[in-house]
């Protein structure tokens, strides 16, 4: 009886307030060895596969990567030039200059969590400067955000979770909306889009940066279906996330500019590569 009441109080406290975040963080530390134990065989398998692969394949892969790198660095050089120009123009317009985001590579542990929500465990925690609310991306787009951070590991909520909403805009015309998770792996829905608005299939959706939680301008997905029903107030627009949500082994943690300043002033000697 007593324990039931304690559980109810705990649940309420956890749901409504943030007092228990510290407790949860510490308990995550206790769980971490277990998660590592689960992850170990999978990691070992990929290590074995890597170490017995043929020299020829490795050489070919290496060549491919080299080519990609050359291509990307050439493109990056161009981007650096464009960024400088952009900053200069923004300076002329007296608008705020976008500060570069700081990133850190984290590894996803292969563990299953609650089957009713879409979550991930990553192997970076508050010790690496991770904070709750930080966003998670891969090379193709936004993946989610950190919801609880322990000392060495943290849990992240994916954008497809039904309780997740993400402020976005259409890249083509800047139409602002909110992308809500559906619980299915490969679909998000855009809410409150009027029937007569200018949305087309294939439109790129990017983060708008409103709300200050996600950095702006990262791709979220592409519009795959639009249903305009005259009897409904809003059109039903579905987008397919561009990030590989459940196939990644490595993800990037992003500190958007305001957070990055706080973190960098707090830990001056732990600089991750600045982009």
């Amino acid at each position, binding site marked *: 009886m007593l*324990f039931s009441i304690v559980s109810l109080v705990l649940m309420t406290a956890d749901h409504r307030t943030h007092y228990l975040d510290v407790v949860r963080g510490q308990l995550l530390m206790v769980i971490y060895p*277990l998660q590592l134990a689960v992850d170990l065989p999978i990691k070992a398998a990929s290590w074995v596969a890597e170490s017995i692969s043929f020299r020829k394949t490795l050489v070919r892969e290496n060549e491919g990567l080299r080519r990609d790198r050359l291509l990307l660095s050439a493109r990056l050089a161009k981007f650096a030039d464009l960024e400088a120009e952009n900053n200069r123009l923004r300076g002329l317009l007296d608008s705020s200059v976008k500060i570069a985001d700081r990133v850190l590579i984290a590894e996803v542990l292969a563990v299953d969590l609650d*089957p*009713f929500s879409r*979550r991930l465990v990553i192997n970076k925690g508050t010790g690496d400067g991770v904070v709750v609310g930080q966003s998670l991306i891969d090379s193709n787009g936004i993946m989610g955000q950190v919801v609880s951070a322990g000392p060495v590991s943290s849990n992240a909520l994916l954008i497809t979770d039904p309780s997740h909403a993400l402020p976005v805009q259409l890249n083509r015309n800047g139409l602002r909306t909110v992308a809500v998770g559906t619980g299915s792996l490969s679909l998000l829905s855009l809410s409150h889009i009027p029937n007569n608005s200018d949305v087309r299939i294939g439109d790129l959706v990017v983060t708008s940066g409103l709300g200050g939680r996600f950095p702006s301008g990262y791709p979220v997905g592409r519009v795959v279906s639009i249903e305009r029903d005259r009897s409904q107030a809003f059109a039903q627009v579905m987008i397919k996330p561009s990030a590989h949500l459940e196939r990644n082994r490595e993800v990037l943690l992003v500190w958007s500019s305001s957070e990055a300043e706080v973190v960098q002033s707090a830990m001056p000697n732990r600089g991750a590569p600045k982009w």
Partner: protein
Amino acid sequence: MERRHGGWAITVSVVVALILTTLPIPDWAALWRPSWVALVVVYWCMAVPERFGLVLGWLLGLILDVQSGTLLGQHALGMCVMAFITLAIHQRVRVLPLWQQGVSVFGLVFIYNTLTLWVNGVQGKPVEAVAYWSVPFMSMVLWPWIYIILRDVRRRFRVY
């Protein structure tokens, strides 16, 4: 201290159950994963009720909450209610043949699972209806094996 024997065997079984709970399995099978921790808790509550009870069940539930990222206390609530009922009926259930024990386990895990899912419902998370039945069903099907394995463990390492 003579009565406390083989505590580490209990610990190991619990750790194995926690590992099985997070072992990655394909998406379609996720709803059919039996509740390993609940099975282990039921077994030890029946086998050594004077050692394993509400407190340990509740703490395990709390660990499960942290592990699966649910609200703190969600699994703990179901777990301690389930442990309480198990303690109340353990003398009647442990003399039954295995399949009838399985049916009782179905009931126990059903209570635990339903309480947990209700909390999800209260939070407004969508819950697939099949989950109310699939988890207790799989737990019932697996109970005879769990029982035999854990009984052998208990005899081998003389846990009492």
